[in-house]
């Protein structure tokens, strides 16, 4: 989060059990993060109230005090209207705003026009419900906002996040136990990948790529200078492949040909590369296009190392299995490649590598393998290797101190409609997500035994199904301006008129991402998976 200078959850999971208000905003926590949802459940048992903000009537709405069925892609209008109410009714935390933040006046001005009545027209949520939830959030002693890809997978995902951060700054729900901002991570080491500098603009430990102090430290440890030019994020790399600026690509454990928005386009870009190296455990569609395929390991049980979870906790994974055949742990493969290209890397273990990370990343300097073994994972920042430094549960406590000099800025943001809205030709809005038992493009979950519903289907509300003459199980063709897929229909009480839902777990059966749009958030490079316009036509009656 650029506002605070770190990209991480400010809270710990345990705080969900010791808070007064839990907002799940664009997060189907119960299905996508079931164990975090258990923390929420215990929080509710301890007296917290939950608010669910989601276009679909997902199961967790049953535990919610309030469900706000926000229209897909209108979250900024809702958040700004909440800010509007909180300021108008004088419910904001004046001392905190004054002492810890800046640009409040600009924010106040920006939200002025988002009256609950205006926001109702955009979001579909009743003005009085917006008022009620705004008051609940502002008046709560402690409150945590949780979100996932429902917030970030939009062309303006970064601005969506700013809209939520603004609310926390306005109310002081940040920097104290039981209050904060909690982006739930979709993949096991999203946090770690970023922390480790697998980013085009950040070095290991969160240094900006051109930070003078940081680059000096890296040059000392690495023996060569850090490249001076900012790199490209994934979407920009795809553009550069289109322009033949990028000609060689190294893909580790990813399946972009299937998982990226507008899959057909991505496939043609991969075909245009001079040289493609893919390191993976299974022959994905991406691997089948490679010039060289390197057999990697299942990181959680065939390698030693660490993952960092969504509450900044670095934890040990341990090798219990030898990778099959000639396959090797992934970090070993990178070392082999480097040495074949003339380097002289001599890491004899994952711990060796970790100890080098501790030299360049002060926030991790105090986290040792020994301490992780002893205490079961340590939350960064942890700067001192001494046992007494056990890391930090929540971030930004400094904002409450009189002597704090680094103020947190408001970032006023404006509502923009999704890039592609339903029209006459493509009258439905398709949104995408995960289901409980399955994961991403299904590489790891296609082999389940004994699991029901192991197939893709289109979820649609009863009224729309009736209009199209569809019964449960009918086969339909779903098409967008970019492609088409054929799937079964499932009539679902979760859906509302005009909105349909698919996952992307079963690409061999239905390539959902050939439908989605590659409109990109310019700041974060996230594609707008969560919204595109589609047409639905019946192909075949359900077998009876």
């Amino acid at each position: 989060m650029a506002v605070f200078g770190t990209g991480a959850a400010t809270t710990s999971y345990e705080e969900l059990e010791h808070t007064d208000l839990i907002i799940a905003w664009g997060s189907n926590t119960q299905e996508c993060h079931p164990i975090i949802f258990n923390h929420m459940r215990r929080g509710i048992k301890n007296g917290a109230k939950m608010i669910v903000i989601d276009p679909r009537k997902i199961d967790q709405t049953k535990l919610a005090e309030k469900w706000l069925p926000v229209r897909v892609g209108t979250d900024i209008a809702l958040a700004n209207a909440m800010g509007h109410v909180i300021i108008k009714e004088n419910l904001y935390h004046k001392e905190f705003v004054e002492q810890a933040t800046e640009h409040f006046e600009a924010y106040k001005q920006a939200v002025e026009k988002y009256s609950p009545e205006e926001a109702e027209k955009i979001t579909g949520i009743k003005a009085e419900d917006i008022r009620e939830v705004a008051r609940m959030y502002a008046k709560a002693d402690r409150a945590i906002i949780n979100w996932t890809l429902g917030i970030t997978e939009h062309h303006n995902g970064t601005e969506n996040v700013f809209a939520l951060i603004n609310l926390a700054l306005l109310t002081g729900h940040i920097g104290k136990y039981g209050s904060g901002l909690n982006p739930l991570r979709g993949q096991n080491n999203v946090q770690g990948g970023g922390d480790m500098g697998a980013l085009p603009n950040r070095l290991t430990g969160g240094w900006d790529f051109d930070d003078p102090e940081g680059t000096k430290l890296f040059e000392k440890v690495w023996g060569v200078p850090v490249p001076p030019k900012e790199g490209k994020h994934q979407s920009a790399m795809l553009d550069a492949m289109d322009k033949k600026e990028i000609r060689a690509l190294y893909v580790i454990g990813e399946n972009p040909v299937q998982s990226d928005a507008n899959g057909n386009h991505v496939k043609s870009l991969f075909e245009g590369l001079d040289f493609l190296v893919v390191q993976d455990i299974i022959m994905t569609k991406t691997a089948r296009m490679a010039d060289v395929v390197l057999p990697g390991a299942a990181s959680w049980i065939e390698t030693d190392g660490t993952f960092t979870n969504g509450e900044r906790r670095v934890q040990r994974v341990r090798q219990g299995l030898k990778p099959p055949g000639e396959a090797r742990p992934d970090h070993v493969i990178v070392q082999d490649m480097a040495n074949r290209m003339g380097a002289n890397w001599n890491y004899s273990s994952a711990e060796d590598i970790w100890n080098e990370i501790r030299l360049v990343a002060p926030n991790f300097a105090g986290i040792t393998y020994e301490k992780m073994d002893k205490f079961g994972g340590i939350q960064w920042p942890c700067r001192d290797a001494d046992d007494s430094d056990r890391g930090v549960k929540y971030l930004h406590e400094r904002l409450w101190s009189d002597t704090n000099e680094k103020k947190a800025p408001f970032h006023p943001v404006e509502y923009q409609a999704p890039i592609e809205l339903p029209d006459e030709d493509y009258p439905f809005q398709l949104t995408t997500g995960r289901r409980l038992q399955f994961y991403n493009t299904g590489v790891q979950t296609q082999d389940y035994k004994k699991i029901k519903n192991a197939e893709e289907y289109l979820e649609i509300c009863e009224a729309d199904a009736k209009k199209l003459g569809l019964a449960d199980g009918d086969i339909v063709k779903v098409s967008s301006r970019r492609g088409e897929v054929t799937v079964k229909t499932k009539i679902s009480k979760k859906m509302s008129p005009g909105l349909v839902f698919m996952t992307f777990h079963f690409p061999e059966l239905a390539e959902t991402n050939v439908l989605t749009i590659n409109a990109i958030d310019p700041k974060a490079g996230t594609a707008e998976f969560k919204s595109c316009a589609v047409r639905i036509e019946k192909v075949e009656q359900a077998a009876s």
Partner: protein
Amino acid sequence: MQTETQSTDHAKTVDTICSFCGTGCGLRVTIEDNRITTVKGDKNNPVSHGETCIKGAMGWGYVNSDKRITTPLIRKNGELVEASWDEALDLIADRFGSIKEKYGPDAFGCFSSSRSTNELNYLAAKFMRTIIGTNNIDSCNRT
């Protein structure tokens, strides 16, 4: 705490972390003859206290699956064929070297893995920045 691994001649238990989402639940894995036999929640783990979801407890079949890639593969006459590590690494060093010479370091990109370890991600970043010489690396933290 969670370091304990008990082993006999052919069976052992290993404490590790689930790889299905960002929660970071602790798993206790039983292994016999280099195959997983059971996966249970690790009661000592501070995140999950022994809890797991259906993915964590049951979603490991792919590890033992015959779909795993077991040797390096290189493309010859349009087909991917089995190769030794030496052949694969030589080919990469050769092609990466000539592309770098002809088009420079910014003609390279790396999509690193949010599924793999911190140690892998650190080395991938170091590889791209020091061996290739570009900042064109991203992890899948946006998708």
